């Protein structure tokens, strides 16, 4: 093996080690999130009026659902604070997002809380709700944790959120970028 090939191998191994360490920490955060996030509060978060507007069609106004989007302050703040605390468990920048089922057929999902770095492998900027992602459907149906590496440089771990009845009512996405970008999403 030449010296340069050896360096490439070592760099690749270091990168792989970094990825698996990051993935392990995200797994831990997601696991703790399932224990800590209050599913009942999550279910109270988006107001009934806002949910109704998500499926309402207002002629000549494509922004009606967004303009009427609203949340219950107390529920939002309580859950967001939990998500922020969870993001401090790792030693690198990460976000813990909350996803909830959204009204619509076929099944849809909505991001309900995002955090400082605005990282996600699922959210498309500006959309109030999106078609259900297969990985989230799996989490909602089975309660299993799912690791997603769809977008290069990003790793997400999805984990279930349960309410007091033991029902799975949402999904947390613990997500980080392998190489943080200080200016990404400041726009």
């Amino acid at each position: 093996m030449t010296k340069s090939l050896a360096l490439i191998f070592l760099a690749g191994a270091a990168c792989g080690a970094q990825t698996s360490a990051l993935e392990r920490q995200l797994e831990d955060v997601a696991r703790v999130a399932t224990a800590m996030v209050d599913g009942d509060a999550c279910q109270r978060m988006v107001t009934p009026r806002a949910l109704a507007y998500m499926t309402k069609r207002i002629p000549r106004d494509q922004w009606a659902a967004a303009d009427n989007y609203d949340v219950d302050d107390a529920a939002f703040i309580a859950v967001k604070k939990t998500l922020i605390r969870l993001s401090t468990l790792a030693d690198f920048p990460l976000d813990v997002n909350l996803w909830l089922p959204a009204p619509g057929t076929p099944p849809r999902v909505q991001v309900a809380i995002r955090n400082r770095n605005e990282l996600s492998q699922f959210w498309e900027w500006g959309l109030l709700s999106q078609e259900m992602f297969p990985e989230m459907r799996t989490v909602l149906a089975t309660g299993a944790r799912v690791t997603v590496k769809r977008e290069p440089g990003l790793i997400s771990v999805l984990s279930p959120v349960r309410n007091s009845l033991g029902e799975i009512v949402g999904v947390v996405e613990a997500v980080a970028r392998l190489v943080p970008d200080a200016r990404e999403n400041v726009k």
Partner: protein
Amino acid sequence: MSNLRSSFGAAALLGFAFAGGCLALDLRALPEFFRPDPFGGVVASDGNGAQQLHAIHLKAARAGYVSFHLIVNAEPGQQYQLSIDSPLPADLYREWFHFNQPDKTYYPDALIPTRAPYRSRMPEPDNNIPKQTAQAFWVDIWVPPGAEPRTYRGEAKLDGGSARSAVPVEIEVLSADIPDSDAVTLDSNSYGTSWMLDQYPKMLARLRSGDGGEDKLFGLIHKYHQMFYDHRGTFHQLGYGHAGKVAPEFAPWLSGSGKAKHIASWDWFDRHYGPLLDGSAFKDSRRGTKPIPYMYLPVNPEWPASFLWWGEPGYQAEFTNVLREMERHFREKNWTSTTFEVFFNQKKRYKGFNWDGDEIRFARDNDYLLEYHRMLRAALPAASPVHFSMRADTSWSMERQFDLLKGAVTFWVAGEGTLSWYPDAIVKLKQRGDVVWAYGGTPAVQSASVAITLNPLRSWIGGVEGFVRWQTVDPGPDPWFALAGGGETLVYPGERFGVAGPLASIRLKLQRNCLQDIAMLERASKTESRVRVQEEAVRLYNGTHLVDWRNTRPALLAKPVLEWNNADIGDALTPFEAKFAVIEPDAWLRVRDYALQGGGRAQ
């Protein structure tokens, strides 16, 4: 840009090879509001009947610019050389013809600074326009404050071997000076700096790779401020995202938590903002140095205090500690000429926070602004010479907010359309000491050139003190060969042309010239009857009376705000907007003639 008085010498002329021989060659001119197309005509939205001119005569006040287009008409393959002999400083720009996707038509807009003599061939090699027969240039003539009032004569010259053409240029300089300060602050808004890394990949390569290079970024930011300042405008860059992330160049760096949270480093902040706040960034401007009048602070629900502590003592402790340190730092630096804006841009639809800071629609969200105002007062000394101001951008519920937030919000940026429903509110807000601006968009390139004058004029007539174009630095993925209208940009990245900063657009130049005229009208209105001056200006502009520029309350206002939608608002605004739907291409030139007469008299 160089003063082009010294034209080109005989030796240079002889040394220039004219491979094109004696193909037809013709130099013409057009007034600034009539944009040329690349085929020898004028773009349709500026008036098909416009004639290219053999000579140009312009009246000018001092301490300002006059402008016009030059058009080189030539057959394909023709080489040419363009120069200007001007006794006044002249800046020459090549006009880039953008292929505009919305209507599949060419429009000139980006202006590439060009040294005279300019040598090229038809078609312009890099613009790549099939069957191009006309290349356009923008000429800015600077009339210095001390210029002697008289007629200055120069000439634009086109040389193509045996064929030659010239356009005599006469500038009649009046004794009036254009006031330095504007009646309407035209603000260009933007968000963050990631777009700079995208638009300047070579210049910011080190920064992109995480290998230092921040000085290049600071320098580039300053270039954008300089560009807008030189065009009588201001530039805003919001430094945080919808979930509170702050880019490192927009805020002092913090450390600690709770009571221990404090500012750890001013280094990047001072290198970024220092030259803007003391005015030294503008030392090379013909307008002289001046600190920027306004800037966004990075304050948001997640900075400087962590949202984790919202509603707890730790939130106020973190907020107060940092804002107090900021005030002290600004005071020690003597940064007392700038208004530091505490502005909340987040919207709950983007899921970062539970309340709207921007364009509040739900009444209870106002409580958060009141709470921040309370904390701000607790943080700042009452008699500070540093100007902090709570700013609110408002649309849906502005009438309610004007009352509810009295004394808390002192800087209002209101949607131009809905603000027209409350014309008396502007006077009341100003009487209590608030600053009132309006906001809106930017006319796309396919609009008539004169459209860029409407927002400044309407602001001045309505009494608002500023107008924000909400996004002005996003030319889209391919501005050069597939422009998406250009409605979100007034400048273009210069890197493609070896320029380490932004390129001005024709629309930005037209806006600057319009602001010069409004400054003249404003001065006239202070020495004569304001109503008479404004009445005459609108009559010349579009044949209206002042009363036509005042909107009335629509029936929609009887319904609760949460029952309105955008279609309702559009319908309610239609009768008012219809008065301004069609403006003649030379409308502003008529207003300018009046401004030059009135301004001269007033002085």
